[in-house]
C-alpha cells in the first residue's frame, strides 16, 4: 500500500505544483496516471521514489522494492552495455562477495529474458534494439530487482502497435505479483485492465474509470490532457 496525504510540492522559485494532494495505491492493482505535459506526472513519480522531497505531507509505503522504467528518451543508447548486462545490473543486490553473479542469479536473469522474449538477442547493445525490444529490456531490468511496485513512465510511447500490445500483455500478466503504477497517454488501450486512474494536472484527481471511458470516447478529456489545470 502506498498512501500520500496533504502533499505540497513546488520547485524552487516556482508556483506550487501540488497543494494538499493525496493518492492511494493498493497492492496488486494496475493504476495509471494521465495528464498534460508539465502537469507534474514525472514529478509525482520522483516524489514516490524518494528522489524529490515534498515541502509538506506524509508518504507511507509498504513497498520494499521499487522497479522503475524511465521514459525511452532518457535512456542513453550510446552507453556500451549488452542487454544481458543491463538486466544483470538490475539484480545487483544479488552480487556475490567477489563482485560477480552466481549460477542461480544467471538462471534468474535467463528466465526474465526468456519471459520477455529477449533471450535470443541478449548479446546485442541497447542501441541495436528496436523501440519495442528496448522497452521490454527496461522492464526486464526493473523486474530483475524483484520489485513489489513497478513504476513505468510512458512505456508505450513511440513504439509500433504490435510492440505496444506485447508490452501491455506483459504488464497485465505481472499484475498478480507486482503492483503497477504507470504514466501513459494510451487511455483506450489500457482502460479495460485498469483498477485506478489518476489525473495529474497540478493536482492529483482520482477519475472514475467508467466515466473516463465515456468521456474519452466523446473526446471530453482531451483538453485536460493538453493543458495543465489553471492555465
Amino acid at each position, binding site marked *: 500500500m502506498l498512501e500520500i496525504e496533504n502533499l505540497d510540492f513546488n520547485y524552487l522559485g516556482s508556483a506550487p505544483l501540488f497543494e494538499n494532494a493525496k493518492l492511494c495505491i493498493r497492492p496488486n492493482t494496475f493504476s495509471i496516471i494521465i495528464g498534460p505535459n508539465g502537469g507534474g506526472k514525472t514529478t509525482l513519480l520522483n516524489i514516490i*521514489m524518494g*528522489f524529490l522531497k515534498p515541502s509538506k505531507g506524509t508518504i507511507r509505503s509498504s513497498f520494499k*522494492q*521499487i*522497479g*522503475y522504467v*524511465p521514459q525511452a528518451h532518457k535512456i*542513453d543508447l*550510446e*552507453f*556500451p*552495455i*549488452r542487454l544481458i*548486462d*543491463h538486466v*544483470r*545490473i*538490475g539484480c*545487483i*543486490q544479488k*552480487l556475490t562477495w*567477489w*563482485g*560477480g*553473479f552466481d549460477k542461480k542469479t544467471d538462471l534468474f536473469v535467463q528466465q526474465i529474458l526468456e519471459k520477455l522474449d529477449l533471450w535470443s538477442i541478449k*548479446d*546485442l*547493445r541497447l542501441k541495436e534494439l528496436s523501440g519495442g525490444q528496448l522497452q521490454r529490456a527496461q522492464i526486464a*531490468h*526493473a523486474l530483475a*530487482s524483484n520489485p513489489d511496485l513497478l513504476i513505468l513512465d510512458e512505456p508505450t510511447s513511440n513504439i509500433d502497435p504490435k510492440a505496444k500490445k506485447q508490452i501491455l500483455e506483459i504488464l497485465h500478466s505481472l499484475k498478480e505479483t507486482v503492483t503497477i503504477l504507470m504514466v501513459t497517454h494510451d487511455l483506450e488501450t489500457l482502460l479495460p485492465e485498469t483498477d485506478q486512474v489518476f489525473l495529474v494536472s497540478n493536482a492529483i484527481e482520482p477519475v472514475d474509470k467508467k466515466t473516463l471511458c465515456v468521456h474519452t470516447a466523446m473526446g471530453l478529456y482531451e483538453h485536460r490532457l493538453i493543458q495543465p489545470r489553471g492555465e
Partner: protein
Amino acid sequence: MLDIFSNPFVAMAAIASLLSSIASGIMGTYVVIKRIVFIAGSISHALLGGIGVCIYLYSLYPSPIFYPLNGALVSSLLAAGVIGWVYLKHKDREDTAIAAIWTIGMSVGIIFASITPGYNVELMNYLFGNILWASIREIKLLICLDVLLLLAVFRYRYLFLAISYNEKQARLNHVPVDRLYLILLALVAVTVVILIQAVGAILLIAFLCLPAAVAGKCTKSIDQMMAAGVGFCTLFSFIGILLSATWNIPLGATIALVCSTFYFILLLIKKEP
C-alpha cells in the same frame, strides 16, 4: 624503423607507454562512460597546486614529507573529494566547481613555484611530462597502479557499471551510489597522480579519454571497451614513438596528436545510423 626501440630511452618510453596504456584503458573507460573527462582534467591540473606547495616547502624544509608526489596525491584526492561533494549535493553547480578547482590548482602551483628560490623546472615537467625520461621508480609505480586498478575493477565492475548507466535505477536497487562515486573519483585521482609523472597533464587527458572513446565506438560491452582501450592506447603510443623518433619532434605532443587524429577519423568513418 623498429631499430629505434634498441635505444634505452625509447625502450623505457615504450614500457612506460604500455603500462600507462593499461591504466588509461581501464580508467578511461569509466571516465568516458560516466562523462567525467573534465573532472579528470580538473584533478590533473589541481594537483599542480599540491606539487607547487611541496616544492616550496621542500626548499625550506628538505624532508621526504614534502616530495612533490605526496603533494600531488593529497591535492588530487582533495580535488576529487570536493568535486564529488559538489556533484552529489549541488549537481547544478558541478561544471563551475570543476573549472574553479582546475584554476585554483594551477594558480597555487604557479605562485608557489615562483616564490621558490632558484629556477624550477619540476612543475613544467608535470604539466608537459617527458615519457622518454621515465625512471625505474616510475615504472614500478605504474605496475602498482595497474595491479590496483585491475583488482578494483574486478571487484566493483558491476557496481561501477550500475552507477555509470543510471544512478536513479541504481539508488532504487539500494546501491551505495554516493560512496561508489567517490571511490571512482579517488581511483581517477590516484591514476592521474601516477600517470602524470610519466606522461604529463596534457597527454594524460588524451590518454584518459581518446583511446577509450575510440574503443567505445567499436565494442559491445564495458569489458571489451577496456581491453580495446588498452590496445588502442598502446597502438597510439607506439605510433607516436615511431613518428617522434623519425621526425625528431616532442613525443608527448606527438602521441596526443595521434590519439586525436584516430578519434576524428573514426568519427568520420563510423557514422551513427
